[in-house]
């Protein structure tokens, strides 16, 4: 029996258990403080970048998400990679032709931070259609981590979602559904420039509210009612309930416009990217069910 157990573990990916000792208020307070130190500058398109425009961030983000999806990366890898990308661009003007190199490098590092078996440099280069080479990626990696001052363990909205769910008096299976949908919203937010200014805790709270709303879970569960939940979460992250509502509405309208775009360009070649974006988490039907 022991032998069987061993084999089983080797066959599958090992993940750490969620440590309930770390899902407490002290840790949450520290996280709320720490997230400020790893936040990008909101105005880097205006103040730092000369060639890079917001729509290019969208293009590279959509591609990065597609790669993370296809490589079945852990959910956190994509938002973490986007955090690196935004932070790098907050300091360092970059040529447009190197933006994809930066995006690949950010995934490379984020994957190492979060995954048992990280993405390889070679694979990432293939995804750029071999427009970059592994050695360039590795040199860029050194440059990136140096620019980020090796401060790589940035908070992601996912870290906060676990804390929120722990605090919510809701059945475990309901939590699982909320988690899944909220994570989809988080990935969607990471692709959109408008959300750079929101700290991860806000994105996380907004995504949880949007998920609960979209799933109509508030109808027969008092705690999950809109008023109650926004009040609760805004207290947890210590923000104004109106800010949280604004964020959540922004998320909902982003989802709506992404879905609309996906439907409009159904035949055009652009469809692919937009649809994939709505496809986050490979739960397209669920996502649609959320709002429509």
């Amino acid at each position: 029996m022991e032998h069987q157990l061993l084999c089983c573990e080797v066959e599958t990916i090992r993940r750490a258990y969620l440590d309930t000792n770390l899902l407490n208020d002290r840790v949450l307070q520290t996280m709320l403080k720490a997230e400020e130190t790893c936040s990008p500058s909101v105005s880097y398109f205006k103040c730092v970048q000369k060639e890079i425009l917001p729509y290019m961030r969208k293009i590279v983000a959509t591609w990065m998400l597609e790669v993370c999806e296809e490589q079945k990366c852990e959910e956190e890898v994509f938002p973490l990679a986007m955090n690196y990308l935004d932070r790098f661009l907050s300091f360092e003007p970059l040529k447009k032709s190197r933006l994809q190199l930066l995006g690949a490098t950010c995934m490379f590092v984020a994957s190492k931070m979060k995954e048992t078996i990280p993405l390889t440099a070679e694979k990432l280069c293939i995804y750029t259609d071999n427009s970059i080479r592994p050695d360039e990626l590795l040199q860029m990696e050194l440059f990136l981590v140096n620019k980020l001052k090796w401060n790589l363990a940035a908070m992601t909205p996912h870290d906060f979602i676990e804390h929120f769910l722990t605090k919510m008096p809701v059945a475990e299976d309901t939590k699982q559904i909320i988690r899944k949908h909220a994570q989809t919203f988080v990935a969607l937010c990471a692709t959109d420039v408008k959300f750079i200014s929101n700290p991860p805790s806000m994105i996380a709270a907004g995504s949880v509210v949007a998920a609960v709303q979209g799933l109509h879970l508030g109808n027969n569960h008092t705690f999950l009612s809109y008023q109650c939940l926004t009040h609760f979460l805004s207290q947890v992250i210590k923000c104004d309930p109106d800010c949280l509502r604004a964020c959540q509405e922004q998320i909902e309208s982003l989802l709506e416009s992404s879905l609309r775009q996906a439907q409009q360009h159904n035949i055009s070649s652009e469809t692919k990217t937009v649809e994939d974006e709505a496809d986050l988490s490979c739960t397209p039907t669920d996502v649609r069910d959320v709002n429509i």
Partner: protein
Amino acid sequence: MSNVRISNGSPTLERMEARQSEYPKPSACRNLFGPVHREELSRDLMKHRQDMEEACQRKWNFDFTNHMPLAGRFEWQAVEKGSSPEFYFRPPRPPKVACRSAPHESLDVNGNCPTVIVVGFQGNSEDAHFVDQKTDVSENHTDLAEQCTGQRKRPATDDSSPQPKRANTTEEEVSEEPPSASSVEQTPKKSSPRRRQT
């Protein structure tokens, strides 16, 4: 048996299910913003690296290229070979085979420069010594080949379904499989636990 593995908080349970191949789909392999100017890029990256090295040299008053201390606020001192943790003496993990094509042999696949680790330094003393980490990288080459071509985690179920159980297979039997392409693909994870023991 299956409950051994994943924490209930793991969000990715569903993703264990069958999905498209792990190999890049052509549609996802694309160049987004046109060609990269190779020489210019390599020049710029080299420049950044030099800047970093100079900054480090200033910060630690140590010449990392020649492994010599410089004058400054830090006083460098040699230590006995056995007195520092084994970690500092252990040879580095050998570079991955697939990356040999890269022209910059000064970086391994993890972006590490195979630099000489300075354990200590003390004036002109004879027993000042450095550990040259460049030595011995040939061990476990097959493992590395496996790693390079290694599968990503969460294998699609169509890969793993024919042989879900290894209960009666001993570790030896598994590792004795010839390193053909297919076995490399199927047993990539063997390499990491074994390598750690070396």
